[in-house]
């Protein structure tokens, strides 16, 4: 869709020039798919990030650092990404948009634009951090990034880092949608880390309920921590999640239904985790 209101399309060669443009009101563009679909309302410069050295995946002991202009397909096809959480990121990516969109959409653009997402709940469950530049570099947990509204500031997301989960940990993601190529009516990402004594050391229960980005259900997480991962614990956590989720109604589903789905999906995710963790 050719869009109006693009004053200039800038292609700076370094991050300093790019952030200067952004601070003067330019919109960063990497894959461009989201900017096309949500174009500026007034004449605005666009600034292309794809010429900047923000591309690629690096692995170190801390985890994976994925450059902002890495496409979702590049992530999906990378064996190091597949190694995280028994393939939870890779599996989730196969359900995001379509291959045609994933070939173009980038992880940085996805996080920076911050819309309905299957990616964000999984990254939240994995305690991912996001790095951005606004003249200097910042790194914060993804949850804080959104909570503090950083994505709405004049910044350039430069990378996301997914830490390697501890040894006795499992993460499961479920998406519930009308068709495969569709936004989720509800999605759910759960992570459990077990102690050596088979108690829950840490957990993340993240539910993506339209139209929010994905909410970590802290009360449920607190409730689970310290318990053994029993079917009773799973059931009570799922029940709590349904009550806690800030569900809303839209044209795809009612809040009531989303609440019920929350219970089912959280239970199924946690049950699958219990089956996976010895």
């Amino acid at each position, binding site marked *: *869709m*050719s*869009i*109006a*209101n*693009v*004053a*200039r*399309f800038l*292609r700076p060669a370094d991050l300093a020039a790019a952030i200067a443009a952004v601070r003067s009101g330019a919109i960063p*563009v990497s*894959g*461009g*798919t989201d*900017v*096309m*679909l949500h*174009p500026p309302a007034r004449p605005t410069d*666009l600034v*292309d990030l*794809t010429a900047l050295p923000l591309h690629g995946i690096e692995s170190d002991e801390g985890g994976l650092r994925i450059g902002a202009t890495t496409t979702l*397909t590049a992530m999906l*096809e990378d064996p190091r990404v597949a190694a995280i959480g028994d393939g939870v990121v890779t599996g989730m990516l*196969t359900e995001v*948009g*379509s*291959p*045609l*969109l994933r*070939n*173009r959409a980038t992880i940085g653009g996805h996080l920076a634009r911050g819309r309905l997402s299957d990616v964000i709940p999984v990254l939240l469950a994995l305690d991912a951090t996001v790095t951005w530049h606004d003249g200097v570099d910042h790194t914060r947990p993804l949850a804080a990034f959104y909570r503090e509204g950083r994505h709405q500031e004049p910044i350039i997301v430069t990378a996301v880092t997914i830490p390697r989960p501890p040894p006795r940990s499992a993460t499961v993601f479920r998406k519930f949608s009308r068709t*495969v*190529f569709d936004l989720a009516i509800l999605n759910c990402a759960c992570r459990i880390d077990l102690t050596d004594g088979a108690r829950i050391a840490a957990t993340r229960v993240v539910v993506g309920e339209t139209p929010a980005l994905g909410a970590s259900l802290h009360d449920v997480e607190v409730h689970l921590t310290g318990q053994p991962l029993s079917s009773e614990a799973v059931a009570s956590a799922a029940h709590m999640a349904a009550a806690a989720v800030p569900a809303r109604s839209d044209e795809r589903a009612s809040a009531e239904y989303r609440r019920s789905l929350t219970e089912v999906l959280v239970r199924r995710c946690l049950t699958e985790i219990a089956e996976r963790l010895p």
Partner: protein
Amino acid sequence: MKIALTVDGTPRETVIDPGECVMDVLRRLGKTSVKNGCDRGDCGSCAVLLNGRAVNACLVFAAQVDGAEIRTVEGLEDAGGLHPLQFTALDGGAVQCGFCTPGMLMTALDLLTVAPDPTEAEVRRALAGSYCRCTGYVKPVAAILTAAALMREGRRG
């Protein structure tokens, strides 16, 4: 602004508007096989290979394809005849109205480049963003699987 790109092997230069998408530019350059079915990345009719990967041409800024290589279905045929994907689509009854065919074939070509021996489920997943309203996908999916076999054997259509 002006961009230079290679389309189906031919270098092209063209003046574009900064907000213009690749689909509109390609159609203006005469590549009308790049179909506008929805103009917002939902249908896949405009899919082309951009530097080897299939994308919705309607969702790519033309300003970003300066120096890029683009392939459309119009460049698939060569001196040896139809590309296996074209041949099997034609022979296998995979084409009804044919409006989605160019985009679907380019999307399939992306898949077969990455996964030369896909399962039926993989083919279906690869077509998730390539709508067809005529065929129910039964024959297109079968044709892509047959094309994959032909390509593995190094055969033409």
